[in-house]
């Protein structure tokens, strides 16, 4: 349905997006996962025809939309990363405005506005000004404003940033419903891997402008099939133990979070024995040792040597 080919964007010195290839099939939810500054928003802006790429192409039903954006625009709904609403208008007035600019009017407009209000759970607050809304309500309305013209393709840029878990859950469920009930195709951008894991059929992981991994959840996690992720809890993190870990070539990607140390190591070696040996030498006491099923976070760590979230 939609395809980005060698998509590239340079801003002066920064290569914000570097030769990105991705595609979406009708009815899929596809995740674009990456840390802040990875180039997700820039990629999305190019795909949705808002900024022209430096090079590369975006194809919709096999036709380039760079010169002729109208075809895509008419079926596209976009949820920007910022709250793109008039804060001095009420929820209903906002929706009516965004409906009217899509040429909705009269009874049809009323019907769509009521429908969207119900969908995003703001029917009771429809006459309140947006500036009096909580973060979660604003986020929901931000999504609602993209749905009035019943887009076939919904592109969402970090739609859950900075909101309470309940609103977040509501939004994720709503996206799933839109996909299942209205067969809406969704491109979902986030730096929360749980969200992407929960929602998406396929995932692209992006870092520093490039796609570094892609595929289904399982395919991506299989990147780590040759590795164990081991989580060690210690009574006290000692510099000597960390030093001992670092000096072992088979143990890599060591991260420390309070008293939890996470390491990756090849499956062939007996990592338990090694860890206990090192502990004994450095007088370190373990409170627990555990092999974890890998998460997308671990994949990201494996691929980049950095955590997804800072």
């Amino acid at each position: 349905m939609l395809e980005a080919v060698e998509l590239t964007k340079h801003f002066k010195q920064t290569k914000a997006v570097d030769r990105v290839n991705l595609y979406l099939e009708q009815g899929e939810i596809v995740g674009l996962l990456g840390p802040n500054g990875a180039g997700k928003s820039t990629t999305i802006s190019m795909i949705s025809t808002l900024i022209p790429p430096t090079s590369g192409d975006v194809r919709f039903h096999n036709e380039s939309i760079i010169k002729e954006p109208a075809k895509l625009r008419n079926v596209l709904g976009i949820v920007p990363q910022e709250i793109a609403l008039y804060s001095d208008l009420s929820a209903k007035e906002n929706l009516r405005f965004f409906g009217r600019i899509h040429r909705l009017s009269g009874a049809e407009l009323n019907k769509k506005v009521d429908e969207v209000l119900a969908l995003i759970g703001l029917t009771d607050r429809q006459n309140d000004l947006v500036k009096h809304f909580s973060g979660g309500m604003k986020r929901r309305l931000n999504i609602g404003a993209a749905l009035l013209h019943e887009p076939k393709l919904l592109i969402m840029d970090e739609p859950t940033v900075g909101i309470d878990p309940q609103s977040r859950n509501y939004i994720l469920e709503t996206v799933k419903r839109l996909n299942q009930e209205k067969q809406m195709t969704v491109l979902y951008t986030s730096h929360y891997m749980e969200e992407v894991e929960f929602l998406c059929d396929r995932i692209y992981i992006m870092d520093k402008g490039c796609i570094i991994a892609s595929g289904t959840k399982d395919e991506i996690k299989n990147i780590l099939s040759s590795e164990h992720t081991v989580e060690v809890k210690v009574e006290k993190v000692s510099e000597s133990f960390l030093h001992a870990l670092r000096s072992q070539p088979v143990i890599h990607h060591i991260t420390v979070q309070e008293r939890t140390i996470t390491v990756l190591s090849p499956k062939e070696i007996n990592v338990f024995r090694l860890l206990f040996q090192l502990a004994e030498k450095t007088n370190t006491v373990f409170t627990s040792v555990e092999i974890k099923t890998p998460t997308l976070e671990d994949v990201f760590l494996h691929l980049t040597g950095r955590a997804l979230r800072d």
Partner: protein
Amino acid sequence: MISILTAKFRLFLRNPWMVIVMSIVCIIMATIIGAASEKKVKIPVYSTLSAQETNELLHTLNESHSFRFEQMDAKKVRALVREGKAAAGLELAENDFTLIIASQTANTFFLREYLQKVYGEKGQANAIAKQLHLSTEQTTKIVKEAKKHPAFTIQTMSFRSKNAVIIDPQMQPIFGFSLFFVIYTVAFQVLQLLKEKKEGVWNRMILSRLKKWEIYTGNLFYSFIIGYMQVALIFSVFRFGFGIDFHGRFPELLLLLVPYVFAIVAFSILLVGLVKNEQQFQALISLLSVSMAMIGGAYWPLEIVSSNILLMLSKIVPLTYGMEMLKGAAVYDRSLTELLYPMSILFLMGVVFMGIGINLTERKSS
């Protein structure tokens, strides 16, 4: 485009205070400055005539451009003159007047001249009235009519030559402050466009069925209307609230404000195209509006500026042409066709600024 205008006006009605406060501040400033720069000399007056006759006579006397006559009791008049608080006092009688002065000055000389002229005309009217057995009012009317259609005309060269300078201390601040304050109002409205771009409402509009020209026109037309409403409101308050009749040119003034507000809208979009962010815009508009007001003659009339550099600079400032038009109509009594030149310059500036401004704004977004 209608959808944009509807939404914008709804937003405006939610928060009209900025425009209202701007208008009130403008009216207060113009009134204070106008009153402070009044040049008329105050003359205290008492009268031995009947109240009605006194009023009629005072009304006639107060047509003077140099003196303002105020009635009070005889004691007070003498006291004011004695204490040197008034240049002269005046006692009005049926056929003659008495000047009470402390010393002879140029002003008392002109005052005597003026009073003699008024009493002369009054005596003339009275004499005719007696002969024709008419009332004095009727004769005054007849004499005035007769003067309008004289038996023979003497071609007089206008006392003011074509390039004569008139400074109207009442019009100057009204025009100056209105044109100055409207820059802020308009700029603030156009600035919303920059905010909408940053916050993404703009992108939603771009991706909608709206055409790009509709988005620009909607935004700019709205800014124009708000700016125009403000100046029209201020002028109307002076016209109908304070009874200032703008020398009978009120409707023309309203018309002449159109090209000026248009040029300011265009100037604002040019700034939007030039700046990187809102803060820069705010800083620039404060700086530019004040300098334009100074250079363009909003604070003091350009007629008293002699620096050639300043006068040259004034040629590139829209406010200059705005003042030129308004004063041209209300103070110099020029016709609209005579004001075509500043009007076309403003339209031209508007078109050029808008073209460049929109182009720059567009280029920034890619």
